[in-house]
């Protein structure tokens, strides 16, 4: 076991699970609470306190639209509603294919690029609503390619057997 069964590791364990699954499934929560011997209610309290932890599934690509002051003034809400139109989901939701989830954040610290959004640590700045479909398509294609890679490697694997 990576962590000893002590309460003080609650956050570390939850962060690891968040990283691995992009969210913390309920089964994992129950498992952690039993392993670390921390009351389920207290663990749930922690999990809902930190914004970095999510109890709902998140997409493969997490789109964070900045709605800080600078971005707001440069119509970040137009960007958001365009995204909603493109993906068919509201902020805080996930697309049915599990590819994208959208959320708003208060400031990304890149006000010079306003309006800005970040998708899995990649920044997209000085956005116009017209840019969005291109960007989204880019990620869709990237995802399809990685899926193809998976299939190929699987076939190769089968061949070797």
């Amino acid at each position: 076991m990576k962590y000893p069964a002590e309460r003080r590791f609650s956050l570390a364990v939850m962060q690891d699970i968040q990283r691995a699954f992009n969210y913390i499934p309920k089964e994992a929560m129950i498992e952690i609470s039993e392993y670390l011997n921390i009351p389920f209610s207290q663990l749930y309290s922690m999990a809902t306190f930190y914004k970095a932890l999510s109890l709902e599934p998140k997409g493969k690509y997490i789109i964070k639209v900045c709605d800080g002051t600078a971005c707001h003034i440069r119509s970040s809400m137009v960007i958001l509603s365009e995204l909603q139109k493109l993906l068919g989901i509201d902020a805080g939701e996930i697309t049915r294919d599990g590819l994208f989830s959208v959320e708003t954040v208060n400031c990304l610290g890149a006000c010079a690029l306003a309006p800005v959004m970040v998708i899995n640590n990649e920044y997209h700045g000085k956005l116009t609503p017209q840019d969005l479909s291109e960007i989204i398509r880019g990620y869709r294609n990237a995802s399809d390619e990685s899926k193809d890679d998976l299939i190929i490697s699987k076939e190769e694997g089968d061949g070797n057997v």
Partner: protein
Amino acid sequence: MDKISVIINGKKCLADKGEFLLDIAERNGIVIPHLCHHEALRGQAACRLCIAEVRENGRKRIVTSCIFPVMRDLEAETDTEEIREMRKTLLSLLSAEVPESQTIASLAEEYGKGDVSRFSKDFGNECILCGLCVEACSELGCNAIATVNRGITKKISTPYDEPSAACIGCGSCAYVCPTGCIRIDERNGIRTIWNKEFELIRCDRCGRYYITKEENEYLRQRNGGVQGELQCICKNCRQAETAKKIMETSLEF
């Protein structure tokens, strides 16, 4: 053990070292308003209404009396002009937070409050998020409820708002709640609390429903797992029975 002398509002009170100022005042009949303190539980220091002024070595400062341990002789005032003004502000904020709460309304009437028209009011909620219920649940050893989320969405709940396996339906949370905002429904021998339904047990004497099956079992476990038939007697009947026993024994003399 040497006693410490605390002068509260001019009245000399004796106290043990480390006792909390609020407890000392209450014991001596000095009323300090408070919401989130219960004598059986640790101070929460959430409502801040129990503020008092402490004077030591020619200096004064404001403390929350429910969590202020008295370590040496000192003087305290609980009703100065400054304290009254601060309490008014606190009650103004509480009134805006839970405008429908009777408890807060009557406190505000007694201690006054400022103009609250500039605050947006939060209706449909009487919880002041003091956390006393969580403390009570945890002290009992159940840990069924806790604070969930944070900031303006913070609330008290069970995990996932679902009926909690840890809850025994004892109702301690509702009992200690200063604003009485935790709902307990009792109908046809079923108690509903925190979205969970509990079957109630009748008192062997008077036949009234008084305890949930789960709580009865929990108490039995705590008392060392008493085996066999256990009498189920409610608080009132137990009191009456004890009183009767005392009467009988005293009559013998």
